[in-house]
């Protein structure tokens, strides 16, 4: 196996941190840009007024997808040192999260197309359009529950547990990660049973620890990098 110099390790950690920051920033911007559809009941009209905005939101979501895969690819070689199966499991569950993000993008873009047809003067059956658009919006809502909530909980739990056992980052940080992961997973289950809304204020509170964790982790990786010295031996 090729030996990697410590400067390369530092660079890898910086890139990982940058991907985490990019993922958070693009996720927030993308969601904000989707507001006209997510927050309005007559979104077919607003959707067409803001169609460029929604497309821009979809582009940011695509960048989010790339950044999320980026974190997994960059961390895998380090996670693998401690436990190859779990490291690979993290990559898999991150990929599934991204697949949901992509399905969500398709739904939103399809709503834009529908809304452009909707304002056509020859169009008579408007109810059918509204129904189809409602279905697509509901699919997007569910992708949000399963991707950035359910799957994020699972994959964050996996890599944070490896962090905890391997001391790749300080233990306090990994504990924050595990806590945040469990909370967002519980939040996703509450959404599944319709107890809380995927876009309500409750889930924002539930998601706070994981959001803080990702930002602190990103800062730590950029400033200090992975701690490769006191890892326990591989299993």
């Amino acid at each position, binding site marked *: *196996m090729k030996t990697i110099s410590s400067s390369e390790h530092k660079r890898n950690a910086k890139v990982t941190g940058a991907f985490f920051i990019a993922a958070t920033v693009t996720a927030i911007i993308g969601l904000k840009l989707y507001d006209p559809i997510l927050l309005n009941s007559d979104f077919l009209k607003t959707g067409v007024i803001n169609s460029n905005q929604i497309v821009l939101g979809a582009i940011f979501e695509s960048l989010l997808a790339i950044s999320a895969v980026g974190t997994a690819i960059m961390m895998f*070689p380090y996670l*693998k*040192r401690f436990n*190859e*199966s*779990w490291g*690979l*499991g993290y990559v*898999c*569950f991150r*990929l*599934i999260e991204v*697949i*949901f993000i992509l*399905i969500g993008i398709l739904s939103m873009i399809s709503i834009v197309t529908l809304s452009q047809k909707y304002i056509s003067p020859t169009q008579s059956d408007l*109810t*059918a359009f509204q*129904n*189809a658009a*409602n*279905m697509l919006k*509901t*699919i997007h*809502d*569910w*992708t949000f529950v*399963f991707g950035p909530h*359910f799957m994020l909980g*699972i994959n964050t739990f996996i890599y944070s547990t490896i962090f905890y056992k391997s001391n790749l980052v300080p233990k306090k940080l990994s504990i924050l990660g595990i806590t945040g992961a469990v909370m967002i997973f519980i939040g996703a289950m509450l959404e*599944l*049973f*319709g107890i809380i809304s995927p876009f309500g204020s409750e889930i924002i509170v539930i998601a706070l620890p994981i959001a803080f964790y990702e930002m602190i982790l990103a800062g730590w990786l950029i400033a200090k990098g992975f701690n490769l010295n006191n*890892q326990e*031996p*591989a*299993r």
Partner: protein
Amino acid sequence: MNASINTTGFIGGSIERAPMSSLRKTSLTSGLLYLLTFVSIPTLALYGPIHAPDYILGSGSDTPVIIGNILELVVALAGIGTAVALYPVLRKQNEGMALGLVSSRVLEAATIFAGVMFLLTVVTLHQTSAGADALVTSRTLVTMYDRIFLIGQSLMPAINDLLLGFLLYQSRLVPRGLALIGIIGGPVLLAGDFFVLFDFIGQRDPLIALTAVPVALFEFSLGVYLVARGFKPSPLTQNK
């Protein structure tokens, strides 16, 4: 050869530590996960109501569908789990095929999750009393579920088991007869899928269920074997 692959990617000192026990952990975990993939069998009954043409108009409970969805989520997660748990061992036999198994398990899980989302969208439409306006969309979503089920939980398992069957046959990690059931079961299920796809047989025909029997038998007995016996001693389990 094996030994040199073994040591790569690991920090030294691990090789001497009781290799059989860590292998036993791998076989036990993957065996249990294989058995866990059978928990979704009740969905056949749980999804009965949502297949009724007027489900969206009725006032029936959505709980059976949600429970079915959760069981499917468990199956998808356990499915990926089986592949990543076996990966470190199977990799030594054929890294490409072992990664292929992980990838096809991810694709399978993605389609399962997509199917769950379609049904949950019907549930949302039902709960918001969308009524007759949503009749067509809800029927569309259930149809999409049925079709993605064919790809995700019928086509992908055939490919998974074919890959796994070959890897296990070549590596002799389990009795070769057991591996052969997977190698035979994969193509049989694949043939059944194409019969459904080209509409020779209905998707809910008992005859189609029959084509899934060898694959189910393979996965179930593999789960039992791995839990009860663990891997058979083979060149791969010799942790030099």
